[in-house]
């Protein structure tokens, strides 16, 4: 079956613009995660959903970052008033277990460049 998909794959935004990044998880996966990956580093956790409920948003770096998953499937990560330090690859992952105890399957990521 299809894996996790993300769109767009690349996004260039001018500083101060708002962006929206989309994630389509593997069908039927209850858990969905967003990570931020800087060049040469491992992914860093941003937020976690179980179905439509956002259970953990402790990794969101500022109140400019907002995520939603209104119907428990597709998720959107929104960044308002983008800054240069927001430039990174944003990865989405999904998992089949509600307890988030098992492996997560990642999408290809969205590379965001803020100019």
């Amino acid at each position, binding site marked *: 079956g299809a894996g*996790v998909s993300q769109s767009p794959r690349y996004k260039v935004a001018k500083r101060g613009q708002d962006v929206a990044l989309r994630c389509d998880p593997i069908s039927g996966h209850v858990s969905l*995660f967003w990570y931020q990956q800087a060049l*040469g*580093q*491992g*992914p*860093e*956790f941003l937020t*976690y959903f179980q179905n439509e409920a956002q*259970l*953990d948003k*402790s*990794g969101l770096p500022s109140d400019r970052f907002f995520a939603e998953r209104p119907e428990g499937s597709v998720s959107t990560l929104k960044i308002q008033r983008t800054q240069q330090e927001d430039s990174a690859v944003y*990865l989405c*992952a999904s998992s089949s277990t509600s307890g*988030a*105890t*098992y*492996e*997560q*399957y*990642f*999408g*290809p*990521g969205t590379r965001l460049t803020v100019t």
Partner: protein
Amino acid sequence: EDQVTQSPEALRLQEGESSSLNCSYTVSGLRGLFWYRQDPGKGPEFLFTLYSAGEEKEKERLKATLTKKESFLHITAPKPEDSATYLCAVQAYSNNDMRFGAGTRLTVKP
């Protein structure tokens, strides 16, 4: 605070030259340790989950092992297609996220 340190940062091998990658971790209550492979421009690809000290898992030329303080990813007779960045991550019982190391960038020369 949970921490994951991977070494070496980069490793260059000749085809067929076996070696090991290290992942040292500190975590309050390990729920699981995960190994991923990441190719340039792609998302991490799941390899293994290890749950308890002494556990081992194998897949083709890769074998992952776990102790209470570290995990090793052993690569036997690597091929050029094994070239990638290998990421280690831990998950604690107390939270939902995975804490990743910075990765080991492996290059296998033919």
